């Protein structure tokens, strides 16, 4: 196919025209290739810009940046320890995953089993959740979810709060913004992606296996336990990581409900701050001050590293499920998600 020009020549079309055609072909191809490579350059530029910018803070504070608990941009007493933000980010994301994964897997199993009038609207419903902008979640979180949870939280404190160890998560009587609210909002936000990826993974599990289990007289639960989950397990872990990556980086909705108080408290009912919420609330002061700016970029680099690692791991795990099941044999069984849905 690369010999288009020569073919034209052999058809008796003038050599000059053939040369021109070859030139146009090459420049068109070259342009599209250049833009593809441009995308790679963009990512490279982004990573270099963030890491070189953050270098000053990393080299000035070293390990302190990751284990220190004080964040003070005041000139002369500058000190940047990002641990409270890392803590807040992780706690809220773990809450989100703990809530969203069981529900997401349940939804995926439901959608996989129930075909007919109800399943399709439900799938669309869940995809709609993915399209809602985070600012809308944030607004709803502040004015609706936060007051609701404030009413439920005393109950949690009095019940689960009494249990040793686990109880510490629901200690105290904090009203207002807290990590629990942020976690619940995040759970709703990552539910669609966990459901979609899990669905995709479950769809590749051969139907015959389940049908065989059912034919042997197993219940629905037994067929799922024996024929679906063993295959889907690593895919579900992959979906979890993808959801976790989303939760870690969510900014606006979390900023609105978490209270932006950098502190390390075990209780989910306490306000906290996350890496993105810190960036979003202090970039203005940092625009002119060198070291503060560098420290904010350091926060960004930390976040990028976390999400990259999670994305790569989840990619590998979802692949593993597909291979486990026997590669492309069942390619046609995939639901129509892909890039048109929510899955990157």
């Amino acid at each position, binding site marked *: *196919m690369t010999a*288009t020009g020569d073919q034209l020549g052999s058809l008796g079309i003038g050599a000059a025209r053939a040369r021109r055609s070859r030139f*146009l*072909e090459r420049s*068109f*191809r070259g*342009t599209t290739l250049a833009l*593809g*490579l*441009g*995308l*790679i350059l*963009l*990512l490279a530029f*982004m990573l270099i810009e*963030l890491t070189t*910018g953050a270098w000053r803070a990393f080299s000035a504070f070293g390990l302190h940046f990751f284990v220190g608990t004080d964040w003070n941009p005041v000139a002369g007493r500058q000190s940047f320890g990002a641990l409270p933000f890392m803590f807040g980010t992780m706690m809220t994301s773990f809450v989100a995953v703990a809530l969203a994964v*069981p*529900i997401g897997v*349940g*939804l995926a199993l*439901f959608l996989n*089993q129930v075909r007919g009038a109800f399943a399709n609207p*439900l799938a669309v*419903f*869940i995809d*709609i*959740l993915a*399209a809602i*902008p*985070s*600012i*809308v979640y944030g*607004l*709803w979180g*502040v*004015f609706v979810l936060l007051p609701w949870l404030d009413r439920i939280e005393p109950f949690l404190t009095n019940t689960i709060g009494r249990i040793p160890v686990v109880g510490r998560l629901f200690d105290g009587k904090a009203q207002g913004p807290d990590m629990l609210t942020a976690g619940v909002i995040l759970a*709703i936000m990552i539910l669609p992606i966990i459901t979609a990826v899990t669905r995709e993974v479950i769809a590749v599990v051969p139907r015959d296996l389940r049908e065989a289990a059912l034919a*042997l*007289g*197993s219940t*629905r*639960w*037994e067929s799922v336990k024996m024929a679906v989950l063993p295959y889907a397990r690593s895919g579900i872990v992959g979906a979890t990581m993808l959801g976790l990556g*989303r939760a870690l980086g969510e*900014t*606006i909705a979390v900023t*609105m409900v978490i209270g932006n108080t950098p502190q390390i408290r075990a209780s989910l009912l306490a306000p906290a701050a996350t890496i*993105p919420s810190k960036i*979003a609330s202090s970039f203005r002061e940092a*625009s002119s001050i060198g070291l503060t*700016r560098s420290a904010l*970029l350091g926060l960004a680099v930390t976040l990028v590293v976390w*999400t990259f690692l999670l*994305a790569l791991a989840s*990619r590998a795990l979802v692949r593993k499920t597909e291979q486990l099941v026997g590669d492309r044999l069942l390619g046609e069984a995939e639901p129509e998600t*892909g*890039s*048109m849905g929510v899955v*990157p």
Partner: protein
Amino acid sequence: MSDAAGALGPIRGARRTKDLAYRAFLGMCVVLAVTALGAIAIYVVSRGFSALSVNFFTKEPAGPLDPQAGGIVQSFIGTGIIVGIASLIAIPLGLLTAVYLAEYGRGRTASWIRLVCDVLLSTPSIIAGVFIWSVVVVTLGRFSAFAGGLALVVLMWPIVARAAEEVLRLVPQELREGSLALGLPRWKTILRVVVPTAGAGILTAIMLAVARALGETAPILLTSLGNDYINTDPMKPTDAVPLRVFVDARTPVAALHQIAWGGAFVLLLAVLLLSIGARVLHARQQKRLA
């Protein structure tokens, strides 16, 4: 099906209980998901709709004494400018990247580009904001709609590229072969045959990217900052609907909260119309080409 005594024995006792628990769990998941979506939709629609008025769409914010008399026209104009700048840059870039991936891309280069697309898609949007803030805003010493647009380009480019690639791949191979057999060079085949056939599908890729860009808050906050007044200079701080919702929601003034709900409602409506529209078009396209 379940009452027949099969090889595993009759379904009674613990087996039955477990199965019932499993079914109940699935039901609960569905109820929870539908409740969450329902609760969000009901609040945004009921509170947001009552905030809409002629002033809401035509006036700048009024003073704190009578916020109800004001509107957020500067946010609508600003969103138009910022998303417009982003679309002008990201759509051509994304489409040409998609052409490379779908038409020319085989081998290692293409799979690297695809990997980079996926990495960019899974990068938190605030990172795009921090990046442009550090490169453009700090360097120029000012927040601007232009910087906001660039931050959105980082988000939109990979979306357009991947979605359009998928659409181009739906075009039957026979069409390409037919066109090449008639002596049309590759580039003409792509521009005259493949792209027009994909037509509406390419529109869906664009709609998805615009829908995403409309609702983004964090990257615009870091780059365009916001503005209480109408600004049409792309080199100055500019407001946007999500920014206005964010700012108004954080004030203690109840009337401004009302305006925030109104903004959220309009935003949600626009984003959902675009993404549902894209979905419908895509389904139709798939049926047409299948």
